[in-house]
């Protein structure tokens, strides 16, 4: 079983790198249209959001299928979320603002969608730092778990960030918001059922 998990992990790792590989390839072969930098910035942001959502899918999958092994992939997927979010952030800082600290600061304080995106990224940092076994032990399971509930806030903020930057056609961000409500709603439902059964 362990052997299967290890090779499956390798596979998931490679799959998780595919979006980035495609973007680099498309960039080099001029397939991203007239505004390639905007396209890469947008796409890495969307991929960060998708990876966050996939980590949130692990628990429901375990509960629905009874296959606990799904959890073995969560850390890696979470780290990929941080990875894509970092590339997204770096592109904004470098390609949009040329690392101009003053301009960036103005953006963060003046523009709510940048503020929200920025907060969302900053909140991912402690989750990334505490993702190792060592940190998990050091914090203790309960505290670690509590800290990592932050991901619920992060996913909502990320969706709001997406929603706010779209000029007029909100369909796509609304789809992500809907999936987020389903993912979080599932947890509320389980919680509610658990409370009921203990009440009995």
């Amino acid at each position: 079983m362990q052997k299967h998990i290890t090779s499956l992990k390798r596979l998931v790792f490679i799959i998780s790198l595919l979006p980035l590989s495609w973007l680099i390839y498309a960039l080099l072969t001029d397939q991203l249209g007239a505004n390639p930098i905007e396209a890469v910035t947008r796409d890495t942001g969307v991929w960060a959001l998708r990876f966050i959502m996939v980590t949130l899918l692990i628990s429901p999958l375990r509960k629905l299928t009874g296959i606990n092994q799904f959890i073995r992939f969560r850390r890696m997927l979470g780290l990929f979320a941080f990875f894509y979010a970092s590339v997204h952030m770096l592109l904004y800082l470098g390609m949009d603002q040329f690392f101009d600290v003053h301009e960036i600061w103005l953006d963060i304080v003046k523009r709510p969608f940048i503020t929200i995106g920025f907060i969302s990224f900053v909140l991912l940092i402690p989750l990334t730092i505490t993702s190792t076994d060592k940190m998990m032990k050091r914090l203790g399971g309960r505290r670690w778990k509590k800290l990592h509930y932050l991901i619920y806030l992060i996913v909502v903020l990320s969706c709001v960030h997406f929603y706010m930057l779209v000029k007029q056609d909100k369909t796509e961000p609304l789809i992500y918001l809907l999936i987020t409500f389903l993912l979080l709603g599932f947890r509320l439902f389980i919680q509610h059922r658990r409370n009921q059964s203990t009440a009995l």
Partner: protein
Amino acid sequence: EAYADLQPSDFSTEEKLTTYESITSYNNFYEFGTDKESPSALAADFPDRSKPWMITVDGECDKPGQYDYNELIKTQTLEERIYRLRCVEGWSMVIPWVGFPLAEVLKQAQPNSKAKFVEFTTLYDPEQMPGQRRRVLDWPYREGLRMDEAMHPLTLLAVGLYGREMPGQNGAPIRLVVPWKYGFKSIKSIVRIRFVEEMPLTAWVQANAGEYGFYSNVNPDVNHPRWSQRRERRIGEFLKRETLMFNGYGDEVAELYSGMDLKRYF
């Protein structure tokens, strides 16, 4: 089809042209979808050239009329005008338009003293324009100019680019080009030009008056509520460049707005 004997214009910029490929593949034309790629994918054969394209000129004027597009352009001297185009989203292009001053058409109609503004309307035809099947904006698209802006020699009715007939995705067969304003003011595929007394309610002001004003002059000092307008990415260039007041056409148009608080009338 190509245009011949185009007059060059003193208003043309000598900046490096954006490629034909970029100008015709990266478009905001919500009538064909809200992403940048849909218009070029869906508007290649727009409009159906077998049908006449009629343009109504009416409202507060002495000589209202209906013009057949093909007849109309025969009566005009076509020029090449190389203009910068700055999109409200923060990107820009340099486009060699083919067209003639809007003022030519307006003068023919002889606007009366009540004509304070000009309202423009895009075709409404969900059969040909699939984006109109969804209510992203309140169709048909409407834009407007103050009378002096409309009569300004920079204001162009464009019927082509790069010496060729206007591609569907760029607003065929005839569109407005107002180079000192954000791109959305330059309404595409026009079927009606109307003189009115009151400031017309434009499609974007109606959609979000807090973010899009009637004037929408390019202004690096007035930010969009959600993003900065200080810089722009010139399509084809790597780094962003500074955005210029009135998109660099201040010498020609600044006097139209003397005494106006441009932060309030954005």
